[in-house]
């Protein structure tokens, strides 16, 4: 593509089938303790 570049190839829809194992870190335990941010966390299964 010449005019548009995609930074990430994984699509969120694809995680519907294989996601939800629940092993990932609880958001509030990471660094914030006051505001919820989830998008910056890693999937435990892709580490």
């Amino acid at each position, binding site marked *: *593509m*010449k*005019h*548009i*570049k*995609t*930074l*990430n190839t*994984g*699509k*969120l*829809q694809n*995680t*519907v*089938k*294989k*996601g*939800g194992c*629940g*092993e*990932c*870190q*609880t*958001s*509030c*335990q*990471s*660094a*914030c*303790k*006051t*505001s*919820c*941010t*989830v*998008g*910056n*966390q*890693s*999937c*435990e*299964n*892709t*580490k």
Partner: protein
Amino acid sequence: MGLVHQYRNNGYNIVLDINSSSIHVADDMVYDIIEAMDQGMEKSRILQNLSARYAPDQIEEGYAECEELIRSGQLFSRDIYEACQEEIEAFSKRKTVVKALCLHVAHACNLSCKYCFAEEGEYHGQRAMMSVEVGKKALDFLVENSGSRKNLEVDFFGGEPLMNWQTVKELVAYGRSLEEKNQKKFRFTLTTNGVLLDEEKTDFLNREMANVVLSLDGRQKVHDFMRPFPGGAGSYQNIIPKFQEFVKKRGQKDYYVRGTFTRHNLDFAEDVLHMADLGFRKLSMEPVVAPKEAEYALRKEDLPVIFEQYDLLAREMLKREKEGKGFQFFHFMLDLSGGPCVYKRLSGCGSGTEYLAVTPWGDLYPCHQFVGEEDFRMGTVFDGIQKPQIRDRFSANNVYAKPACRECFARFFCSGGCAANSHNFYGDMGQAYEIGCAMEKKRVECAIMLKAAME
């Protein structure tokens, strides 16, 4: 409901496809094409409208690229809830397990921070220390209620947890003794103001804790104003050398130097950069959670200044990265290669369901922010959850339950925001805290821009 979010930041034309979470960087022409498509404009009209600015063959080429992305589900993709309703509904009704506890090992503190939601550690109650017996019972409760989850998280919190050091050490040893026979793995974390850090504690924490959060608000005048000792003296000089020594010995393990900004330091980017100048590399700076009448509480009219500060911080991070002096800022981090699955993004922080707080005497609350609010007391570590209706309320509180979130482009990044924030501000945890949302959206935009710039 919008399907894409477009914005320009630091010279980048960014297009976020909300439901796939695909992030695109476009040239000016395709940015305009997508904007026109989003308004429902026909191809012929787009060609006509843009022909004054771009060559027709170029517009055709750009349009074809957009069509390719649409076909592959990366642009104007359908609402994920509509597309996968059955799976998501099944997940919402799942039986939840507890996988993380926030242990309030000390309801006491050796600082008198002005914004402390815990009221100098005492949480609307009296000063108290968690006994080893209550702590062990909490770890037993966690193991028993964690189902097949292997990774369990335990945060030592307060007040100031180092004021109850012996309990911390004994609970880590007890947790380790439970791991093999129960096929569990404990990830211990601790949040400290640093006053009591010494060589022995530093070495123990660096060995045993998966993450340590070190509280520092930034520049000395800012930190000392909000985080004094009870007598009024500032704590900055006391803690900085201890934090520097701690981080030097920490190696590659996780830590965060974490601050809180208030109305008193709306120029908080300076405080983050000050942390970086002190040699810290993993940083976080949180907006204060405060009752709206507090003089230090953030107000809606502060938002333009706060947005400028996030932009300034992002640009300075890029500059320092190029100079080989880069650092991480918690809210600007994005995992584009393997971020969280849709279920995680829907269910949010897990408070009240997967994550509970434990008081020194063993009471269970949905999270540390709710401790001391009697209506939210869910049970005890001795008798388990006695008010499952509280858990169910939290379980149902996902992004699709909140009208403001359903329309928001950032819903899959913040996953509905902080229930306590909403409860504090509106007396209802099912709302979206407007000021917090505005800041979160800005942080997501900056985080995406940084990814684009570092590609």
